[in-house]
């Protein structure tokens, strides 16, 4: 069975400081991993994805994540937070079509990022 654990439900940073949102995954197969962002009253937007190519993945808006198999982690980082980064972030795992799986997404519980001026 596959699952993701987001270690922090809330993270607060000051504008201009680094962002770290933590995620650990569990998967029987080589997973695909994603980070999605949801701004208030907006839809889900894909930030970045890992699908077994480079382990350091760059996404939109300056975010990046590193896949570490030995630690089963896929933490999201950004060097300098901006006020517009305030949103809820979801770490997501999928096993694609391995073993006949349907590529459904399994979402973490989300991390609410607050950015203080």
């Amino acid at each position: 069975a596959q699952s993701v654990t987001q270690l922090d439900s809330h993270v607060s940073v000051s504008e201009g400081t680094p962002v770290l949102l933590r995620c650990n995954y569990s998967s029987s197969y080589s997973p695909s991993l994603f980070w999605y962002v949801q701004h208030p009253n907006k839809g889900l937007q894909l930030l970045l994805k890992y699908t077994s190519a480079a382990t350091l993945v760059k996404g939109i808006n300056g975010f990046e994540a590193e896949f570490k198999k030995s630690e089963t982690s896929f933490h999201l980082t950004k060097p300098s937070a901006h006020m517009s980064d305030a949103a809820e972030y979801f770490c997501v795992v999928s096993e694609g079509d391995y073993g006949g799986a349907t590529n459904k997404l399994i979402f973490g519980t989300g991390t609410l990022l607050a950015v203080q001026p």
Partner: protein
Amino acid sequence: GAGVSQSPSNKVTEKGKDVELRCDPISGHTALYWYRQSLGQGLEFLIYFQGNSAPDKSGLPSDRFSAERTGGSVSTLTIQRTQQEDSAVYLCASSLGRSRVLSEQYFGPGTRLTVT
């Protein structure tokens, strides 16, 4: 180009009534997913359609929930005899296919369902 669209954007219904939620996927996307986002359960998978294959209904919470996809495009999620615990945002997503390479799912804005 046009993204995934869903209608209605908001729906308020009385307990016990049936509701239908509609999803228009991105043109050419063969895979379509329904998810539900609620305060108690977070984001959870409901059902998946891929081309003409039998749908994966493993996420449907009860037999009051059903979905169909006509002509490989538009999908309708139906909830019969709604209960208050059905209140949630229902999200639809589509992708080019189910393989790893084609796996990016694009989400619609959702339908907020409130059962009173």
